[in-house]
């Protein structure tokens, strides 16, 4: 008889069947994934960003591969709030994982309007505030790099959440990520997700131009993982642990051991992004592998690993 293991986690008061989520913007609205994995096997699902009006997104090329990663500059292309509610939400409502809607905008009012409209939807467990998208001219990352603005927008959106959980997604493109983490918590965030992508550039040496039509894009994939693990650990130690705020860790995760690194660093849950592009069933595989890991190592509760990093020399 195999030992029963518990891979569930408590994420800001929400019991997730396991700590694995999709990363915003990498799994659409769940309808595309069904052919490849059982979406209900996931602990949580974070949607692509929703803005008030539909957004076309940036011209192409929108992506370029790098060594162990990729740059994207999609530009928050999405169907807009109303079509999201009528066309996408019913699919999400029928799913088991806790659904977090990623909200983006160009003004604080826009973030608030979108959140208010969705706050009464039972299908939604909470919101992820996107103040860290590097690929739009207005809004996005410009809110996310200044702690004063982070606190202001978080407070405004929190009031519109109708009691649902608010996650603030942090950019790594700052000098001190703990300062923005603190500001988000001060503004009322119940959870933080990190990291969003790094602003980066690839140049075509033949044309001597940037490859991406947007010039720059966000770097994601295995290349960023060690930095993401470090930043999660930094925010956990300096801010989140004492504040009792759970972290959703992401950046380059593609195996269970990657996910466990994030848990040890202090993340309560993890999200799979770029790896889903290569292996559409990656997140589901990681759920299974986490369970196997617990069995193999005699870990009765996966949540015991959260923040269990040992640092003997410090």
């Amino acid at each position: 008889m195999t030992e029963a293991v518990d891979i569930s986690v408590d994420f800001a008061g929400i019991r997730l069947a396991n700590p694995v989520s999709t990363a915003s913007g990498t799994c659409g609205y769940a309808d595309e994934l069904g052919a490849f994995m059982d979406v209900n096997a996931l602990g949580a699902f974070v949607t692509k960003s929703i803005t008030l009006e539909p957004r076309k997104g940036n011209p192409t090329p929108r992506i370029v591969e790098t060594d162990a990663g990729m740059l994207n500059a999609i530009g928050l292309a999405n169907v807009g709030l109303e079509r999201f509610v009528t066309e996408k939400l019913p699919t999400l409502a029928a799913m088991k994982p806790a659904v977090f809607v990623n909200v983006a905008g160009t003004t604080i009012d826009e973030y608030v309007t979108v959140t208010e409209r969705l706050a009464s939807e039972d299908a939604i467990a909470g919101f992820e505030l996107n103040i860290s998208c590097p690929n739009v001219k207005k809004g996005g990352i410009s809110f996310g790099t200044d702690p004063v603005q982070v606190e202001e927008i978080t407070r405004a959106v929190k009031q519109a959440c109708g009691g649902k959980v608010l996650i603030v997604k942090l950019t790594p493109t700052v000098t001190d990520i703990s300062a923005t983490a603190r500001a988000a918590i001060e503004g009322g965030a119940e959870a933080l997700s990190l990291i969003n992508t790094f602003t980066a550039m690839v140049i075509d040496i033949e044309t001597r131009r940037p490859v991406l039509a947007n010039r720059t894009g966000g770097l994601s994939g295995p290349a960023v993982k060690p930095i993401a693990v470090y930043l999660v650990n930094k925010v956990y130690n300096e801010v989140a642990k004492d504040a009792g705020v759970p972290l959703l860790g992401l950046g380059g995760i593609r195996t269970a051991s990657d996910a466990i690194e994030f848990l040890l660093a202090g993340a309560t849950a993890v999200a799979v992004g770029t790896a889903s592009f290569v292996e559409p069933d990656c997140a589901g595989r990681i759920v299974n592998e986490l369970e196997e890991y617990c069995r193999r190592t005699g870990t009765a509760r996966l949540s015991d690993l959260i923040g269990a990093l040992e640092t003997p020399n410090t």
Partner: protein
Amino acid sequence: MCRTDAASDKGRFSATITANVKIGECFWRMDMRFEDAGGEAFARFRPGQFLQIDASDAALPALESIPPELRDAAQRKVLLRRPFSFAEVTPQNGATMAELLYCVVGPASLRMTTLRHGDTVDIVGPLGNGFWVPEGKRTALLVVGGMGVPPIRCLAKTLTADYGDLETYAFVGAKTVGAFPFEGKLDEVSEQLGFSVPAFARFGIPSVLTTDDGSAGAQGFVTEHLAQWLDDNADRPKEETIIYACGPEPMLAAVAKMAIERDIDCQVSMERRMACGIGLCQSCAIECRVPDSDETVYKLCCQDGPVFDARNVVWPS
């Protein structure tokens, strides 16, 4: 073969390679076999659909066999899958055989050349919407540029098998003789249209062959021959003709313009840089018209295409 035939049974499958041979200066042919669920899914593969191959863990060829111009690119690691279309798909005793023609251009396709008979390859597909045949068509014109050959070859087979009444002609062009992904001699002179490209002749489809430099077939652009044919056959009812095109985007734009001006149906197979191929990453945007409006939207090459009605695409002016 209607528009709603899009595969609902896409998935991630393993295929076994049965051959992987060099067929030209930079062209290779990889034959593979899908079994079980993969065999069933790919038996329903439609011409113009595509698949995504993971070549990231295939070995690089020995340095001395890598062309000098690719030695720098060869040092890149491969993360993402690469999209390809099949040139031929043949269901066979429960399994499905498929032929993939590829051009060696970078780190992933270089790695693909080292796969051997018996190796397996990880494939996501069948993906996207293929070509379709609207009601009432009597003439099909296949227009191909260079590496656009595979999906059109696949279409030629289906048209011959399932639409025997269609009169079909192929217009096949490339920059130079080495830029055709064909095996063997390709410019047998024939009475109809001037040439006979074996890849189309085997389906009884007469063809024109052109190269920009005159190194095979007639010198010039394939679009010039298409225009000539359309002018010579201007008395045919335009609603009974359809053009199918795959090739470099400037060629597609020229063909689309010609078709739209003459009010002839035209389907084009488009290409974009893509990460996932299944609608997740939103990278492969194609600017399309909104009917009865000046507005445009981005559609996804992977999900809404790769085959589009030429009238719906915004072409560079």
